[in-house]
């Protein structure tokens, strides 16, 4: 083999190469696709019917609990994206694949963004499926066709934020256990929000306070507003605002963690 020095590839080419691998991995691991799709849908099917009596509570914002509950799968799906992204990256670190990449001229930013490419594909597939299932079960989108697209955008942005969180944990701790260990906390944060009932009808004071201070409530309410209310600028601003904040914070911290992890000289 000829000894020669190759020119470092451009940033976009690096991102594309890593993203291609990440997407290939995602699409080839059916279990990774199926479980995050099915679990939230099973809960949606069950809770959407089991809790329909909640619509009789005075002040409940819609007459269809199913429409109210449709927001939740988008958030639960985002949690699964976080775990899948983090676990994938942690496995690369654990197996030494990360070191192999580190020996190439690959930039840390390209590795991070490329890795998140697979997460975006997963998020897109999930969001579209959840929306289609919602429509198929008779849920109308109050904000119309344009609102459906905005809903998908918000859902993907939320997933991207959680995926960055997964990447951050993987880069910081370097093990799959650490990434999976955070799942119960994320799961709890979704339940301690306005996921099951709107904040204005939650009766227990401390629960209402926790839900009010829990940013997950605003992510859910942003998605939900497009389904049951229409164009609610406040809910959307808060939803997109918190989602953007999540992306900025987690992606920023993940970039810093990448620099530490990729400590080649």
């Amino acid at each position, binding site marked *: 083999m000829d000894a020669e020095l190759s020119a470092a590839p451009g940033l976009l080419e690096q991102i594309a190469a890593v993203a291609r691998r990440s997407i290939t991995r995602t699409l080839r691991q059916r279990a990774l696709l199926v479980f995050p799709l099915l679990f939230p849908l099973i809960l949606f099917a*069950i809770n959407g019917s*089991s*809790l*329909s*009596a*909640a619509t009789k*509570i005075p002040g409940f914002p819609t007459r269809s609990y199913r429409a109210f509950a449709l927001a939740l799968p988008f958030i639960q799906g985002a949690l699964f994206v976080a775990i899948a992204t983090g676990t994938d990256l942690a496995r690369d670190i654990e197996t030494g694949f990360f070191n192999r990449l580190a020996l190439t001229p690959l930039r840390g930013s390209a590795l991070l963004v490329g890795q998140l490419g697979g997460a975006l594909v997963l998020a897109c597939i999930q969001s579209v499926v959840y929306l289609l299932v919602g429509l198929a079960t008779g849920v109308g989108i109050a904000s119309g066709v344009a609102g459906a697209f905005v809903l998908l955008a918000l859902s993907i942005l939320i997933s991207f934020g959680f995926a960055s969180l997964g990447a951050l944990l993987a880069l910081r701790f370097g093990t799959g256990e650490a990434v999976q260990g955070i799942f119960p906390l994320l799961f709890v944060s979704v339940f301690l929000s306005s996921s*099951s009932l709107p904040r204005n009808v939650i*009766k227990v004071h401390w629960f209402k306070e926790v839900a009010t201070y829990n940013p997950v409530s605003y992510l859910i309410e942003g998605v939900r507003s497009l389904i049951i209310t229409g164009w609610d600028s406040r809910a959307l601003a808060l939803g997109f605002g918190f989602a953007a904040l999540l992306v900025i914070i987690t992606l920023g911290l993940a970039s810093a963690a990448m620099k530490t992890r990729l400590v080649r000289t």
Partner: protein
Amino acid sequence: MRRFLYVARGVGWRSIHNTLVSPAILLPSIIFPLFFLVAFAGGLSRLADVPSFHYAPGYTSFQYVFVFLQSAAFGGVFTGFAVARDFESGFARRLLLSAPRRSGIIAGYAIGALLRWLITGTVVTLAALIAGMNVDGTRTDLLGLLGLGILFNFVAALWGCGLAMFLRTEQAGAVIQMPVFVLLFLAPVYVPLPLLTGWIHDVARLNPATVVLEAARGLLAGSPVKFALALALLAGAAALLAIFARRGLASAERAG
């Protein structure tokens, strides 16, 4: 019979020993039911204001019974995970080699599941009492409630052990857990059966878990309903799943 008891006692001891010395095993089995209690009893308590919602002891008690039974079922399911783990690590084969009466292995795992759940059940009960749960049942009613929990735990442990012995891989976890999860949530979890509408009402009406849940709620409220039917259903399930678990063990024996 003596050899059966020796094996059961040994396996049961190891199971509970591992639980007590390993917080990674014990804590999730305590924290998750506690969390469900908080999330359901706290977050959904307004459901008690829905017209036609009748449960005298209140919503915390209503949800406590569900979480009590759910923790019993999941205590059994988690034991299935432990069995699968033992097969992956090779420890189960050591058990098969050394146990003079192999059916004692299943009984041992079931004993481990019960002891572990008794810890969880106690913690959940204390938490519910601190949260202001009302208990209207008599001492006999409460013993009946405990009996239902123990039987439910036993049934789930047989299911978990049996399936884990058939599949012998940790990846069986989701397959063990999911049917139990779905069965439980297709019962009237959040509101009484009459308040459910549509398909979920039809499914819940036919779901045997509904009978157990209603019987347990009746006992806590001091007005027992369907208790005998619940006992019969659980006993029948235990008998069927004991055969299933024994076949799982035979499958593992054949696999060597």
